[in-house]
């Protein structure tokens, strides 16, 4: 009984000690997130990126009584609601399409303030990966957000008024902007641009949190001009100029090594025609640093201190930009676990040295395997022409939705996607004038894996070895993030719109609720001013990965609105 209420008491104390309703969110407070379990202060929950809540007021014994407390609708919610809410001192902050932000009373859902960024509408109409926003950051009295047209903005946390905005990208020429959440670290805000199939160099930026001035920039394609040119030399025929890359989802931070870890996007074009001769021929001869890599960057200087390229010469669009950087410790040794979009999960030490690689999904044939030291075995490099059954499908063995690590069970819970594709590779050239256009390199379509049907699964795994404890199958891959809690619960928002609470130990279903439309965003837990624990989940379908669902699966996806986003919030009676 004492232990059961321990986490809640700590959360209440944190709320009371902050004094005012609008407590400061400092770097130290995020670094020590364990001490404020009633908050969700950063995209991944904490710098450890566990997507885990230490709250246990809602638990396996009472979750069957969980009910809707309130809901809030995001206006103009084109492409649904893909964001991760944040919570501090009982106040909820969340973003939506067209760079809108709300601050809500976490107990009642009452709107405290609303902000909508003035955007270059003509530019936004020309974007493909748009107009959604996947999240915000809190810190230094501000709410930070990257915009579709290439800015980073800071809003006053108390009033929602604009404090500063800084133009970082020439989005009018590059077409891309920012859709991922920033990361607040120490006195800086770090954000990565879209890249990948977009022919530029995918920069990651750091901006001073107080002044808004850009402090440093790192080009994920070819590195910076003042760093060794080895990286640039991994792009033959000057292909680095249109290399793609990017860092379109937030990374993690390790205070002990003072390194920000960031995953980078794939190179462009997505599909190369070189075949096995990729080091010397094709669209982009070479290993293409630093695409499809993890980067360890000093947040103060922007200096690249460590990296590992998960997929040298990625020829399949399997980003490292997706996925959380789980910071773990086991038997006195410290690890970092990061999934690659292909469905392989990489295990590192805290300096970025590969310790193990394990397979989350079954249908993989773009390589035969990846060895525990990270070496690719049996690459399937494609040539011009038709190819059948490339696995996984372009949307990935995993997508950008986060998994969760639960320190009480010691398990990592992650959505895996089982699907494949047929494609016809063609030679393409980058289009950069008057605006950049996608550079894919193939026609393609989704197909069932040979001998199987497209499906998804949520499995409970040992994060270091991949050993599976249990698995729950879904007829269509879920595309939302997961949440686990100290109440021994795993919350799974699926693609059909059903939110389930599973027993984190056994996978048994304990509760479910039909949220009315598909899930394609985030889920968190927090404590409101009423001292109750809440679960807040984004609902609203329409992300790019889910765009194939209506034509491939039919109902219910062909009945979902694509302009609806509703935040649904649950609590016990």
């Amino acid at each position, binding site marked *: 009984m004492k232990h059961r209420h321990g986490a809640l008491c700590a959360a209440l104390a944190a709320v009371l000690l902050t004094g005012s309703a609008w407590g400061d969110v400092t770097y130290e407070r995020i670094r020590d997130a364990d001490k404020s379990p009633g908050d969700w202060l950063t995209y991944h929950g904490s710098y450890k990126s566990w997507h885990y809540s230490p709250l246990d007021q809602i638990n396996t014994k009472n979750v069957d009584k969980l009910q809707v407390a309130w809901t809030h609708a995001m206006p103009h919610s084109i492409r649904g609601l893909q964001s991760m809410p944040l919570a501090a001192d009982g106040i909820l902050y969340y973003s939506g399409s067209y760079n809108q932000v709300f601050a809500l009373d976490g107990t009642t859902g009452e709107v405290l303030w609303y902000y909508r960024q003035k955007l270059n509408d003509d530019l936004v109409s020309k974007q493909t990966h748009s107009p959604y926003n996947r999240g915000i950051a809190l810190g230094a009295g501000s709410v930070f957000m990257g915009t579709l047209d290439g800015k980073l903005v800071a809003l006053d946390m108390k009033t929602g008024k604009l404090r500063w905005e800084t133009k970082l990208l020439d989005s009018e020429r590059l077409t891309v902007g920012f859709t991922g959440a920033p990361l607040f670290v120490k006195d800086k805000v770090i954000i990565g641009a879209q890249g990948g199939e977009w022919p530029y160099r995918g920069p990651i930026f750091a901006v001073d949190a107080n002044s808004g001035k850009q402090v440093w920039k790192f080009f994920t394609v070819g590195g910076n001009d003042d760093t060794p040119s080895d990286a640039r030399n991994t792009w033959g025929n000057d292909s680095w100029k249109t290399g793609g890359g990017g860092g379109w989802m937030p990374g993690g931070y390790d205070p002990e090594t003072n390194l920000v870890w960031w995953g980078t996007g794939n190179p462009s074009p997505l599909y190369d025609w070189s075949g096995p001769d990729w080091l010397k021929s094709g669209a982009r001869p070479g290993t293409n640093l630093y695409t499809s890599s993890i980067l360890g960057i000093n947040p103060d200087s922007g200096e690249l201190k460590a990296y590992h390229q998960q997929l040298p010469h990625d020829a399949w669009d399997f980003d490292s930009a997706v996925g959380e950087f789980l910071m773990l410790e086991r038997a006195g040794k410290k690890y970092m676990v990061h999934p690659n979009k292909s469905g392989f999960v990489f295990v590192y030490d805290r300096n970025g040295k590969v310790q193990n690689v394990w397979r989350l999904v079954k249908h993989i044939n773009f390589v035969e395997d990846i060895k525990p030291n990270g070496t690719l075995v049996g690459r399937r490099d494609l040539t011009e022409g038709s190819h059948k059954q490339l696995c996984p499908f372009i949307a990935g063995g995993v997508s950008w939705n986060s998994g969760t690590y639960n320190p009480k069970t010691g398990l990592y819970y992650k959505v895996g996607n089982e699907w494949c594709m047929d494609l016809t590779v063609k030679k393409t050239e980058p289009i950069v004038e*008057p605006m950049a256009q996608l550079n894919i390199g193939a026609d393609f379509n989704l197909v069932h894996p040979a001998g199987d049907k497209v499906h998804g699964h949520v499995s409970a795994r040992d994060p270091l070895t991949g050993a599976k404890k249990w698995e729950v199958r879904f007829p269509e891959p879920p595309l939302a993030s997961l949440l686990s809690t100290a109440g021994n619960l795993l919350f799974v928002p699926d693609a059909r719109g059903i939110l389930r609470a599973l027993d984190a130990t056994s996978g048994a279903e304990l509760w479910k609720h039909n949220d009315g439309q598909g899930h394609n965003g985030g889920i968190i837990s927090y404590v409101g001013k009423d001292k109750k624990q809440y679960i807040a989940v984004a609902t609203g379908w329409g992300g790019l990965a889910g765009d194939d669902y209506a034509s491939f699966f039919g109902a219910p996806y062909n009945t979902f609105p694509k302009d609806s986003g509703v935040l649904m919030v649950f609590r016990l009676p």
Partner: protein
Amino acid sequence: MNCLRHRILVVCLASLLPGTTIAQNAESATSRPRDAQTIFATTCGWCHNKGGREAGKGPQLMNTTLSDAEIITRIRKGKQGSMPSFEGAFTDEELNGLVAYIRALKPQ
């Protein structure tokens, strides 16, 4: 007849005349016309599966009931939340080439 329709009609009629060079859209800056198959593999194929033969993220284009003018308008203006605008991205010759490509689509 509004300005846009008049312009499209002029473009379409001009394409039927031998030896006619279609004036480049002032907003586009491509130095050569790209063929439609390459444009699809570069950009359109992201949403239009199998070169437009199958529905995917976007609708099937093979056997579309849209008129030539409607296709060109859709490419230029896009559709909010579904398709970006390609205003200025392609020359008139490329746009006409895309229409011809779509009309000629057959199952593989």
